[in-house]
C-alpha cells in the first residue's frame, strides 16, 4: 500500500505498484477472447445442422450394415461415441427414422441394452442425462423386456439436482408403462424431500402409457408415504381420469385435522366431479366448518362445488356462507346459488338481510345468469 502522507508522492509509482494497466490489458485480452470465441461458436452453430445430418447418416449406415449382416450388436467403440452430445442426438434421430422402415431396428436397443444402460449411468453432465432420458421416452419402450435395463437408471436420475433430468426421467418411466416403477419414483422423491411441481407431476401422469387404473392403484397404495406435492398430483390425476374408486378414502381424509389446505382443495375438486350424496355431505361439511375460518380456501372451493346438490340444507349453508368474512367464499357461494336458481323466497331472505355485500354479490350473480341466458 502507498504511503499516503509522504510529501509529493508520485502517483505514477502507486499505479505501477498496483499494476493497474497490466490488469486492464488482461481484461481486454479476456474480452477479445470472448468475442473471438463467439465467432467460433457462431460458426459452429451455423454448421450444427450439417454436422448433425452427417452424423445421422453415419448411424443410418451402421443400422443398415446391422440389418444386412443380421447382427445388431454394436462394437464398444461405437457406443463410446455416444458420449458426445451431437452423436447421441444423431443416434436418436437415426433410430427414430430407421424405425419407420425397419421393425427389426428395435434389436439395436435390445442387443445393446447393457452397453447403452452403462453409457446412461456413466454420463457426467446433467444436460446429457436429461437428453438421454428424453431419448428413451422417444423410443417407445413399452415392453418390459425393452426397458427393464433402463428402469433403475431412470430412478437414479431422479436424485440428481436438475429439474430437467428429473422431469425427463419421470417422462421416460411413464413411457415405459410400469406402474410399480412410478410408485417407486414418487416414494424416492418424497423420501429425499425433492420438490417437483405438482402441476408438472399431475400433467405427466396423464402420459402414462400403461393401464391408468393400475397406476392409480399403485399410487394409492403408497399414498401415505408421499409428500404433499405428490399427493396433490395423484389426486389431480384421479380427477383428470375420472377415477372415483377412492372417494371413500378421501372423504375420510377430509376429517383429518392435519391435512394440508392444498390437499383438501384437491380432494374437494375430485369429489365434486362425481355426484353422490356422500360426496355432497362431505363437501357441505367442509363449507360449514371453514367458511369463516382462517383456512378459507377449502370453503371457497366447496362453495363452488355444491351446485348439483340443491337441497334445502345446502342452500341454507350457502346463504350462510354469503356472510363469510372472506371475499372468495362469498363470491363462490353467490355464484353457486345463482346457478342453482334458488327460489324467490331465498333471494328475498338475503336481500332483506343485514349484509349489504351478500345482497350485492347475489344480485350481481343472478343478473349475470339472466344476461347469459339471453
Amino acid at each position, binding site marked *: 500500500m*502507498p504511503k*499516503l*502522507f509522504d*510529501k*509529493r*508522492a*508520485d*502517483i*505514477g509509482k*502507486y*499505479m505501477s505498484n*498496483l499494476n*493497474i*494497466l497490466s*490488469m*486492464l*490489458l488482461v*481484461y*481486454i485480452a*479476456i*474480452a*477479445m477472447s*470472448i*468475442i473471438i470465441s*463467439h465467432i467460433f*461458436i*457462431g460458426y459452429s*452453430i451455423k454448421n*450444427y445442422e450439417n454436422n448433425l445430418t452427417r452424423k445421422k447418416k453415419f448411424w443410418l449406415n451402421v443400422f443398415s450394415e446391422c440389418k444386412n449382416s443380421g447382427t445388431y450388436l454394436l462394437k464398444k467403440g461405437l457406443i463410446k461415441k455416444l458420449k458426445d*452430445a451431437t452423436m447421441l*442426438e444423431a443416434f436418436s434421430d437415426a433410430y427414430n427414422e430407421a424405425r419407420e422402415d425397419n421393425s427389426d431396428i428395435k434389436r439395436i436397443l435390445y442387443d445393446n441394452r447393457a452397453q447403452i444402460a452403462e453409457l446412461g449411468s456413466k454420463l457426467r453432465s*446433467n*444436460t*446429457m442425462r*436429461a*437428453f438421454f432420458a*428424453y431419448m428413451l421416452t422417444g423410443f417407445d419402450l413399452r415392453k418390459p423386456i425393452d426397458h427393464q435395463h433402463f428402469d433403475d437408471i431412470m430412478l437414479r436420475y431422479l436424485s440428481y439436482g*436438475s*429439474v*430437467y*433430468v428429473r*422431469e*425427463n426421467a419421470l417422462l421416460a418411466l411413464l413411457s415405459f408403462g410400469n406402474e410399480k416403477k412410478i410408485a417407486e419414483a414418487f416414494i424416492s422423491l418424497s423420501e429425499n424431500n425433492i*420438490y417437483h*411441481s405438482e*402441476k*408438472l407431476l399431475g*400433467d405427466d401422469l396423464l402420459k402414462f402409457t400403461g393401464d391408468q387404473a393400475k397406476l392409480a392403484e399403485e399410487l394409492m397404495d403408497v399414498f401415505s408415504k408421499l409428500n404433499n406435492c405428490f399427493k396433490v398430483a395423484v389426486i389431480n390425476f384421479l380427477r383428470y381420469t375420472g377415477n372415483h374408486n377412492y372417494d371413500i378414502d378421501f372423504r375420510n381424509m377430509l376429517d383429518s385435522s392435519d391435512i394440508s389446505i392444498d390437499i383438501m382443495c384437491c380432494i374437494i375438486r375430485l369429489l365434486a366431479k362425481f355426484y353422490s350424496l356422500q360426496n355432497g355431505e362431505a363437501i357441505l361439511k367442509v363449507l360449514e366448518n371453514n367458511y369463516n375460518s382462517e383456512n378459507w380456501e377449502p370453503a371457497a372451493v366447496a362453495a363452488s362445488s355444491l351446485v348439483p346438490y340443491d337441497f334445502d340444507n345446502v342452500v341454507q349453508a350457502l346463504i350462510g356462507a354469503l356472510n363469510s368474512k372472506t*371475499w372468495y367464499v362469498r*363470491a363462490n357461494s353467490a355464484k353457486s346459488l345463482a346457478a342453482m336458481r334458488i327460489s324467490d323466497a331465498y333471494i328475498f331472505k338475503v336481500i332483506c338481510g343485514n349484509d349489504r*355485500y351478500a345482497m*350485492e*354479490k347475489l*344480485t*350481481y350473480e343472478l*343478473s349475470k345468469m339472466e344476461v347469459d341466458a339471453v
Partner: protein
Amino acid sequence: MNIITNIIIFCNVFFLFYLVVYASSLLVSNMYGSIKMYRYRKLERLHNELDHEFYFPISIIVPAYNENVTAIQTINNLLKLDYRLFEIIVVDDGSTDNTKQLLIDTFGLKRDTDMPIRYQVPCRPIKEVYKGKSGNIPILLISKENGRCKADANNAAINVMSYPYFVCMDADEVLQRDALKYASRAILEENNVIGIGGNIKISNNVSFGDAMPVSASLGKNFISDMQILEYGRAFVGSRIFQNLMNSNLIISGGYGVFKKSAVVAVGGYDQKSIGEDMELTMKLHEYYRKNKLPYSMKYVPDSVCWTQAPESLKDLKKQRERWHCGLMQNFWKYRRMLLNPKYGIIGMLTIPFMMLYELYCPFFILLGWLTIIASTILKIINVPYVVIISLVYVLLGILLTITSFIDKLYMKSDYFSAVDVIKGLGIAIIDAFFFRPFLFIIEFFAFFKYKKISKNWVSPKRVQVKTE
C-alpha cells in the same frame, strides 16, 4: 499543502479501485451472461426444458393513457400469444383521447354493470368495467379516474383480475409470442417464484410478423441504436449474473411477471413512486427477507418484450431523468436495507454496489475529473499514464459492449449480421465518448431537479410498430 496533496492522492487511489472494481464486475458478469446464454441454447437443443401444453393462467395488464395510436395493435399482438390460458386487462386511466371507445368498438366490449370489485390494493375508483372475448381470450377494459401514474392503473387491474399471475407491460410494446411460455417454465422450475423479469429489447427498427421479430438490424437512428447496445449490456451483461444471488433489484415495468398474492401481500404498487417497478421489486425483497420467507425473483432472457425507445435527445433526457429520480427515491425509501445483514446479499452487496455505480456515479465521475485536474496542477500525476489508463478503460468498455451485442447469437429469434457488428462497434465508440457522458450529465442534474421531475412526467411520442 501536504494535506491537500495527500487528499488528492487518496482520491486518485480511490478512483483507481473504483474503476478496477467496476471493470472486474463488468467482465465477470459479461462472461457469466455469455456462458449462460450459450448454455440455454444447448439445454434447449438437448431437450432440457419443461415443455407443456398448459402452464398457469395469467392476466396481462396493459395500462393505457391516451394510447389510441398503439393500443389496438398491442392487443392484436397479444391475441397471437402462443399460450393457452390468459386474459387481457386494459386499464383506461382517464384518457382524454378516444382510447376507450376505440377499444370498445374494435373488440365489441360490453359494459358489465355493478360488477363487485374487491379493492385489495389501493387505486383510484373504477368507474366502469367492459368485458368481451376474442376467440377464447377474455378482454376486460377498466375505465377509471386518472391516477396520474402507471402504478395506480396496475393496482386497479390487480383488483379486478381473476388469475394467480399477472404480466405488467406498456401499451406500446410487443410481447413476443413465446414470452409467456418461457416465463411460466421458470415458475415451474423452482418452488416459490414470485417474480420474473423478462428481456426488454428495442423495437424501433424491428419488423414483426405474428408477434415475432422478422428482422432486427440496427437502424439509422443513433440514439435508439445506442440504447440497443445499452439494453444488451444491462440485461445480458448484468441481470443474468444477478440471478445467481437472487438479487435483481429491478423487474422492469416494461415487462414483468408477478404472483398476484405476493404483490397484494406487500400492498401493490406505490402510487407515489416515480420508479414503481423498482419500488415493487425492492418491496418484495424487503418483505420476504424480513419475514424469512423462501422466495425467488428471476430474470429469464428468453422471455422477450419489445419496446419503443426514445429517438430524440429530448425524449431520452426526460426518460433518464425520471429513471434516475426513481432510483434516488427508491434508495432513500429503502435505506434501512443498506448494509443491513438482515437483508443478506441484497443489503450487503447489491444495494451498496448500485448506489456507488448507478446512483452516485455522476458525482464520482465529476470528482474524478476534478481530482485529475488538481493532480495535474500540483504535478503529482503522470499525465500520459493517466491518459493511457483512461483509453484502455474505455476500450475495455467498448469491447464488453460489443460482447453483449454479439450475445444476440444465443438469443432465440434475434437477428444481426456482420454489418451490424461493425456498425455496433462504431456506435459503441460514439457511445463511450458521447452517449454515456451525456447520460452522466443528465443524471447529475437530475439530483437537483428531483422535485420538478417527480411532479411532471409526460410520456414520449408513440409510433406504431412495423408489421409484415
